[in-house]
């Protein structure tokens, strides 16, 4: 009466209930905060080049986040979101992929894009919605995307990318190109109906997709204790029969290892995988948020000690692959570069008026062309009222 693969179920004659405690969920840890590796740990595939690339990405991430929060306070950008404290989970997982694997993010995964080489200019142009923005100035800051880098443009509605990732990965399987999709989402977004739909579709149709949950303890003000009653997101893997692993999200090697193993399995077996990375959102949800309204400084301080970047640095120092001089030079340069890039991007013009009506369809249909023509005439009549576009209308 059920799938053959679960045939052997035990018969009982008195009621017995399962619940969240019926399965124990171990957590994978490889790197300690002091930069040493657990004795019995199986290290991920990593060499000096990769290690330094990862670390430089982390540094860039930290600096960009710092500077952009400041830029937002100064009113230079309207909005920003940091990944403070969670950088390791994102950079570690991105590093475990093939650069041609598709990444579908939620919004706090700029680290993955950095790892793939999205330029500082590209970040800036998006945030300033200027005419060089790949997204043509249409979305709020941090909604990056790049076809070239196989990083799907971020979309604000939460959870929608989860079933999309299943579909994308199914397409990759059909084409037999040995690539997979990695889909990031928060533990909050995992409450959406789309989560259930996406994981179930992937499991039933054997899509090579890695569902990567960043469990950072909060969805804006809502703590995870009010988000779900089960043992995190990993405990749901049982119900979908999806291979699932929980990792210390602040341990970049645990994340990298899990992702490398997951990717191999996903592609070899055409199967989805769940990785749950346990971390903590050390910063505000976004520049519009003030966490003091819902949590204590004490709580924050407790997690600040688990900084994933410092942890990796400690390891690099121990390898003699890095020193404090390099450290200072790197951060100084990054700070300068970011500041210069802000100054450059903020003076670039906004996209021309045409871009208001392109890309709604592949072509501009007649009714929209008519609306555009009327708008153009109107702006010509009142150029002062539309300073962003009036100057460039012919």
């Amino acid at each position, binding site marked *: 009466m059920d799938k053959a693969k679960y045939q052997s179920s035990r018969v009982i004659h008195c009621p017995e209930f399962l619940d969240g405690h019926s399965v124990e969920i171990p957590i994978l840890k490889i790197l300690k905060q002091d930069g040493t590796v657990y004795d019995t740990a199986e290290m991920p595939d990593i060499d000096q080049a990769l290690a330094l690339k990862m670390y430089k990405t982390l540094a860039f991430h930290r600096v960009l986040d710092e500077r952009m929060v400041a830029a937002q306070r100064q009113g230079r950008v309207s909005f920003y979101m940091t990944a403070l404290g969670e950088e390791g989970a994102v950079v570690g997982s991105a590093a475990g992929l093939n650069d041609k694997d598709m990444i579908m993010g939620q919004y706090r995964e700029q680290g993955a894009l950095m790892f793939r080489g999205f330029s500082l200019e590209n970040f800036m142009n998006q945030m300033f919605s200027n005419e060089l923005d790949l997204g043509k100035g249409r979305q709020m800051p941090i909604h990056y995307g790049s076809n070239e880098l196989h990083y799907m443009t971020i979309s604000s509605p939460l959870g929608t990318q989860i079933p*999309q990732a299943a579909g994308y990965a199914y397409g990759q399987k059909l084409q037999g190109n040995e690539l997979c999709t990695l889909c990031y989402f928060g533990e909050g977004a995992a409450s959406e109906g789309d989560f259930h739909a996406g994981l179930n579709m992937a499991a039933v149709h054997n899509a090579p997709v890695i569902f990567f949950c960043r469990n950072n303890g909060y969805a804006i003000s809502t703590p995870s204790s009010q988000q779900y009653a089960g043992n995190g997101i990993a405990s749901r893997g049982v119900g979908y029969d999806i291979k699932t692993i929980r990792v210390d999200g602040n341990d970049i090697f645990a994340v990298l290892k899990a992702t490398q193993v997951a990717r191999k399995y996903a592609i070899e077996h055409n199967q989805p995988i769940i990785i749950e990375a346990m971390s903590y959102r050390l910063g505000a949800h976004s520049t519009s948020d003030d966490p003091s309204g819902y949590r204590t400084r004490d709580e924050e301080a407790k997690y600040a000690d688990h900084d994933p970047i410092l942890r990796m640095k400690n390891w690099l120092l121990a390898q003699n692959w890095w020193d404090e001089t390099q450290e200072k030079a790197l951060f100084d340069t990054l700070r300068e570069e970011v500041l210069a890039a802000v100054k450059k991007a903020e003076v670039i013009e906004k996209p021309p008026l045409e871009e208001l009506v392109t890309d*709604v369809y592949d072509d501009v249909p007649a009714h929209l062309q008519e609306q555009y023509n009327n708008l153009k005439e109107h702006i010509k009549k009142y150029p002062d009222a539309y300073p962003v576009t009036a100057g460039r209308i012919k």
Partner: protein
Amino acid sequence: MAQMNLLQAINDALMIAMKEDPSVVCFGEDVGHFGGVFRATSNLQEEFGEQRCFNTPLTEQGIMGFANGLAAQGSVPIAEIQFADYIFPAFDQIVNESAKFRYRSGNEFNVGNLTIRTPYGGGIAGGLYHSQSPEAYFAHTPGLKIVVPRNPYQAKGLLLAAIRDKNPIIFFEPKKLYRASVGEVPEEDYQLPLGKAEVVKTGSDITLLGWGAQMETIEKAAEMAEKKGVSCEIVDLRSILPWDVETVAASVKKTGRLLINHEAPLTGGFAGEIAATIQDKCFLHLESPIARVCGLDTPFPLAHEKEYMPDELKTFEAIMAAINY
């Protein structure tokens, strides 16, 4: 040419599309081996294998999310929603995702390969949840195209065009006509244009506009009116979004009168959009108010379906009222 009913015409279009392009994939609830509850996807799994035609779990939001991802990847998904009444769990995936995918990404990504097929409308004693005509809910969404065929010939040609068009399309199939409407359909591949209305019959006194299954109702009403000496021009809108303002306006400028007919409730239905546009474009030509003969502003009923429907008698009465205004 072959005699086909509307289901066969759709099945034929799907066969052609799948044969031509190995990246075309058909899926939905019961769409696989069984061929769909209406059998529109019959034999596709046998012909093209389980990877390209399959049952999905019972989740419309999952179907559409999966389809969006597949389209973004470059495959050509044709997703079936078993009844249009059940498309609403997928509303977010369609309205916030499919429709805005290209725009929000600056064309870095798009889901233009997507086609959604779904049976709509009354006539099968289906009550609230097997009868709805939800086209207007989607027509307020820039980025989508919406198509409704009226007969087998139209169905095959429009569906092939929809599958190949580079925009996400909802293709509403008038399920009342699935078996009832039979006609000559070319066996070969052909396409009919999207975004173009068709003047089905020319006339001089009033323009009657509709789509899908209601075209038959309009034709019957026109026959009644012709007997009273009223010359009716009949237009099948075919595409609801973008819609062919030009053809409709030209017709109304000629006839001076317009009647629009749809099954969905009056308030907020697509007839409102058409009336608003045409009163603007044809203000000085209108000899009577634009008439809307639509479903009542109630959920779709069961015992009173006949009373609810914008049938030929109500349409005929409205024609005569317009003429005698």
